[in-house]
């Protein structure tokens, strides 16, 4: 009998120690936050399923969850395989839209970020230049990316160039502004010390202003990519012919709400994944490190 008791209590003990182990590993506070935080999501999921089962709202308002996933499969069913998807063959509808949008993001980032940073740093270094360019930047930022869309359509017609331009525009001005402010926050005395040590203009940029403006630049990157992504989706909706924004707009016109839901979910996932796993850690890593070493005046 003592054997049975020993076994039972050892099972209990094993469970208890496993529980403690998990809690120690993840940290009880974090675990609690994770579990608590997922409750609303679970509730929404349950409500969604119940809505489909009990038909509280018609399917055209809230599509069954299964249909949303089904739409993904339907859109891709004619696809000629991964090779086709990667080469953006016409048959792979969903992946085409996703890659179009992401492609524009990457292109706009690759062009817009360096340009914005470069101009911003230059503007920030020269007091006179910034006095004139800052109002321009303020005004350009105030005409939000979206308001540029009709003009872009006039210039480039409906298509990928318009959408690319809008995102580029948004990113450029935000990066310009943030870089300029970042450089302005670096005390003049650092530049002077490099110059008096015999450094050249390039040295000053590389050794003083670029590192000094880094926190603003990284934060600016995160903000501009966030706003740029939103502007891109809007541009694709209004003036595009491909991409996720275009897809959800057209699907809405055709009342294919499950495709709309699918698109919106994908759009949010892309944004959240990039922001949470790429940009936020980058910002944390650089800005916090830099923040420890140096704070702007």
């Amino acid at each position, binding site marked *: 009998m003592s054997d049975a008791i020993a076994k039972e209590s050892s099972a209990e003990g094993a469970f208890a120690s496993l*529980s403690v182990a998990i*809690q*120690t590993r993840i940290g*009880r*506070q974090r675990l609690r936050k994770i579990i608590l935080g997922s409750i609303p999501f679970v509730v929404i999921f349950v409500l969604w399923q119940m809505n489909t089962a009990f038909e509280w709202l018609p399917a055209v308002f809230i599509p069954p969850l299964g249909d949303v996933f089904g739409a993904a499969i339907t859109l891709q069913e004619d696809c000629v395989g991964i090779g086709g998807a990667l080469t953006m063959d016409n048959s792979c509808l969903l992946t085409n839209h996703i890659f179009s949008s992401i492609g524009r993001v990457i292109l706009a980032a690759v062009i817009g970020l360096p340009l914005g940073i470069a101009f911003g740093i230059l503007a920030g270094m020269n007091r006179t230049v910034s006095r004139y360019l800052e109002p321009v930047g303020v005004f350009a930022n105030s005409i939000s990316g979206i308001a540029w869309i009709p003009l872009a359509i006039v210039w480039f017609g409906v298509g990928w160039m318009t959408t690319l331009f809008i995102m580029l525009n948004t990113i450029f001005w935000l990066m310009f502004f943030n870089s300029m402010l970042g450089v302005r926050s670096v005390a003049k005395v650092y530049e002077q010390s490099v110059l008096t040590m015999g450094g050249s203009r390039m040295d000053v940029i590389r050794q003083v202003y670029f590192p000094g403006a880094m926190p603003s630049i990284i934060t600016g990157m995160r903000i501009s990519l966030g706003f740029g992504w939103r502007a891109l989706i809007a541009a694709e909706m209004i003036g595009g012919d491909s991409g996720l924004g275009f897809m959800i707009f057209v699907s809405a016109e055709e009342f294919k709400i499950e495709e709309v839901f699918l698109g919106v979910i994908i759009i949010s996932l892309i944004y959240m994944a990039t922001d949470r796993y790429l940009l936020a850690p980058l910002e944390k890593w650089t800005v916090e490190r830099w923040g420890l070493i140096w704070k702007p005046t």
Partner: protein
Amino acid sequence: MTAKLVVEGLSHHYPDEYTGVDVHALDNISLEVNEGELVSVVGPSGCGKSTLLNILAGLLPYRVGSATVDGVQIEGPGPDRGVVFQEHAILPWRTVNRNIGHGLEIRRLPREHIAKRVQEFVNLVGLTGFEDKYPHELSGGMKQRCAVARTLCADPVIMLMDEPFAAVDAQTRITLQEELNRIAMATKKTILFITHSVDEAAFLADRCFVFSARPGRLKEIVEINIPRADRIWSEMNANAEFIGAREKILKLVREEVSVATEE
């Protein structure tokens, strides 16, 4: 002498915040605080003093044992038990006056009445002239005076203090202790305060509850029979009763500290 606070058989467990391991904070605590008494609770770190205070304040629910104030079970925070927190908890966006009057404001008493009472307590704690200042304009000692005034102004049955003078410098601390003594004499309030400092406990308390190391048990009660009016720091070092009591408490606490560190 009526007992204002009666605790019987109070025990408390809780799972540790970070590892989930069960912590036995208090073990079978039974004590009484009489009307007008100033009692202190001393013990080594981790002996459950703060847990006890939080339970008595009603901020921590308890399952085993009973705790009553004037015969009524403690079931949550309330104005009958005023609390002075370790780190000042006066609201930063209210002036000294508005902070001190906060308890009465909550009870929706008429404004003239509040103003009168507030002025009494401003004067009592020595903050005259600072009525319209904000907390960030006050020193640490003054903030705690304001906190004490706030608690007293709300006229609780018992005032609970959680290491109220731990966050100020040594000089201010001595001054505040003498102040608290003076206030206790003037208001005849029932006070229970938690402290790390044996000196402080011996100086202020009529009775001192010494707790053991975790799990916290009531180890011993040390009585200190010095009239309130005689409790002045400059004279304490010549007072045999004080020295004796302090030695005794110190010895008891030291025993527990070595027990705790041996674990």
